[in-house]
């Protein structure tokens, strides 16, 4: 069986190639090795899984950690390894150890780069937590909530296998104790089969010293539907990395990223939608706020391949800057190889409109209060949507946002 390797940046046209940027790498002084790998097998009894992980470990050894200019990452020294990362789960879902043949096939069939190959392989080779979600055909699964605690480093390897006509809702919440330097890297392969649908909500409440790299690959088959809300707050480096692969016609995906960076946070987001099939619809609509010395980088990539006729792709991002020293960067990228499509992107960066500020002040709100209200207003639609999954969750997010704005 051939592996589908979905590269993040794919620049060629017929016989013409373009020059592709190579990220420099730095070898860690004390990288993870056999000892940590053996530790990671402690809680795994599934032989196929063990084999897969060992291949990934071999590949891991060939890579160094990246030198990332925008997030100021100069290589990385892994923390002390813990073989089991505690997570609290509500709802019906297996641990990754419960993966079946069907799921292993998914692991073997689909591969992707992740924010950086090294981090993706790290999550897989050294996974200390992970889940296997498999729905029955036509099943509607009750919402699943996964709670992560960023105390010790988290390496997650998960597979979601949504059978045709099934529906699932997964809410992943990460909380940090904001004491030490938390670290998480993940690898998620999500296959949404024909006519299945997924609602995925990520809530990342990172501390100022945490590194959170969330690599998610989603394959959309015919008539499938995926809705994602990706909330990223804080973090020394927060790097969500989403790859949507539209392989089935009539599939639809929307992703709504919300981000809030304060202090010295850096949030570097990448959302890629690659369209292979006709009549597909994809949209990315990011909104966020930056403050103090923080930085937000929004990379929204829409890549339409030849043959994806009648695709409808749109991307937008809006960053509100509240402080002089905060930095907003946007790389909205649109690469199109099929002319019978509608594709557009937009990016805007701005500060609070003085007219809106004035209007609120005529209603007695002080300048500071009005600023906060307007800024918070950006997050409000997300918080509102979260009410569906539980008032406690939406209230928690509301509080964190209010506190940091």
């Amino acid at each position, binding site marked *: 069986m051939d592996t589908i390797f979905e590269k993040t940046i794919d*620049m060629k*046209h*017929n016989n*013409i*190639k*373009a*020059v*592709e*940027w*190579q990220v420099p790498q730095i070898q860690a002084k004390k990288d993870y090795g056999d000892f940590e790998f053996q530790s990671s097998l402690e809680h795994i009894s599934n032989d196929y899984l063990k084999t897969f992980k060992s291949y990934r470990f071999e590949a891991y050894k060939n890579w160094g950690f990246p030198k990332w200019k925008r997030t100021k990452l100069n290589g990385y020294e892994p923390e002390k390894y813990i073989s089991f990362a505690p997570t609290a789960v509500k709802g019906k879902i297996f641990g990754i150890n419960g993966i079946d043949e069907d799921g292993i096939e998914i692991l073997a069939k689909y591969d992707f780069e992740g924010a950086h190959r090294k981090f993706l392989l790290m999550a897989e080779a050294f996974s200390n937590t992970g889940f296997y979600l498999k729905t029955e055909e036509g099943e509607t699964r009750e919402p699943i909530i996964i709670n992560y605690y960023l105390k010790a480093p988290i390496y997650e390897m998960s597979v979601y296998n949504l059978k045709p006509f099934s529906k699932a809702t997964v809410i992943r919440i990460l909380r940090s104790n904001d004491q030490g330097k938390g670290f998480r890297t993940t690898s998620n392969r999500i296959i949404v089969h024909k006519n299945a649908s997924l609602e995925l909500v990520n809530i990342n409440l990172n501390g100022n010293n945490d590194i959170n790299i969330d690599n998610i690959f989603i394959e959309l088959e015919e008539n499938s539907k995926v809705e994602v809300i990706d909330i990223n707050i804080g973090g020394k480096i927060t790097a969500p990395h989403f790859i949507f692969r539209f392989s089935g016609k009539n599939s639809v995906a929307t992703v709504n990223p919300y981000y809030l960076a304060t202090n010295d946070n850096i949030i570097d987001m990448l959302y890629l939608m690659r369209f292979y099939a006709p009549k597909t619809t994809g949209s990315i609509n990011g909104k966020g706020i930056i403050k103090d010395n923080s930085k937000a980088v929004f990379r929204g990539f829409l890549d339409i391949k*030849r043959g994806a006729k009648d695709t409808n792709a749109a991307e937008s991002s809006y*960053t509100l*800057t*509240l*402080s*002089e*020293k*905060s*930095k*907003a*960067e*946007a*790389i*909205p*990228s*649109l*690469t*199109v*190889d*099929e*002319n*019978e*499509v*509608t*594709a*557009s*992107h*937009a*990016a*805007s*960066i*701005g*500060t609070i409109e003085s007219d809106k500020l004035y209007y609120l002040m005529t209603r007695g709100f002080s300048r500071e209060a009005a600023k906060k209200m307007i800024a918070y207003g950006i997050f409000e639609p997300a918080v509102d949507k979260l009410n569906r999954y539980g008032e406690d969750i939406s209230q928690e997010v509301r509080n964190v946002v209010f506190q940091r704005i």
Partner: protein
Amino acid sequence: MSRDKEFNIEDLLIDQSKFDFKSQVKYAYKTIPGLNKQVVEAISDQKQEPKWMRDLRLKSLEVFETWRDPRFGVDISDLDVSKIVAYIKPDAKKATSWEEVPSEIKDTFDKLGIPEAERKALAGVGAQYDSEIVYQNIKKEMEKLGVIFLDMESAVREYPDLVKEYFMKAIPITDHKYAAFHGAVWSGGTFLYVPKGVKVPLPLQAYFRMNNPGMGQMEHTIIIADEGSEVVFIEGCSAPFYEITNLHAGAVEIYVKKGARVKYATIQNWSKNTYNLNTKRAIVDEDGIMEWASGSMGSEKSMIYPASILRGKGAKTETKAITYAGPKQHMDTGSKVFMLAPYTSANVDARSISIGGGWAFYRGWLRVGGNAKGAKASVSCQALMLDNISKSDTIPLIEVHTDDADIGHEARIGRIREEQIYYLMSRGLKESEAKALIVRGFVEPFAKELPLEYAIELNRLINLEIESSIG
């Protein structure tokens, strides 16, 4: 809806044959293919240059040999510098009137319609033929105004201090590998200085021509618009088709001083085997305005990003660009804007048409620095894909490092929209007429900015649309 006669994609491609002829001209001097110290020194000797320029060339050569190739953009691994002959000087003295130009060379220009342009009352025409300015003509009014408009070599000799102050300051030789290459072997180009408060009433034009196989065109143009002055400069380029690779690594440096205004319009129509790695940069001071109008139609591979550095308060820049990517063409073009001072503003309107397997790639860079309070920028990219085998990409980079800025970017890629066709048809146009009109409308903002012969070329392309359907 009825279909008009069968559409043939060949018809839509820009007809290069008008430019596809060769002349028999004697060459007085040819450098050895490849680039080394001897070649560079020979060039400097030929031009009788002052020591500082010779030193600059040698330093550039050093840099070129140590720098690596650009890590993005078109694939230039096929480019073998050693095969490019850097410098050729045709056997002709400099002429000051049209009559003095040798007849073979005059023929070439006749075929290209230069006399027509002359008759259209342009203030002065500088025509470059194989690295040397052969023909110059500045009307008396220009001289009276104190405008300095001459070929770069003469400027180096006659106005050394002025030139030295500006030469390769906007584009340092260390900027990138091909800037260094340029610094070592540059030849030809225009020097234009407009004194304070002078508003040049007519557009100035220079015309370039490459005629020898394997030749590299390396002209260097400097435009200095002193405080409160205004000038429009139009540049056009072409080359006939040859088997051996041609390289164009020219440079344009523009200095817009306080309150001055410069418009620089280019049409690039190099033939299909040219590599066009041109560097264009403007530095804009307080309340200055820089307008780029850039049409890229030819070359096999291009990397052109007109750049404006807004370093004075209230500086403005406007870029209108159109890129045409036809069969086997890879056009990596775009615009760069650096907003480094308060109350600066930028407006970019970049459009592309891709057809017949061409690849149009827009690469933009907008950087708003920490000092750019009150900056406003709006970038719009539109791409029209005329068939199903071409590619159109847009990858802009937007960096905003201040909180008091209003920055927007949008891009759209598509084909002609059904609603537009329907609306025009409801006003009585046939489907093919409606399509032709829309395409012409798409390109119109640029046709206005171009020299007549290119505006004609563009309209011809659109007229073909009128006769065939796009489908």
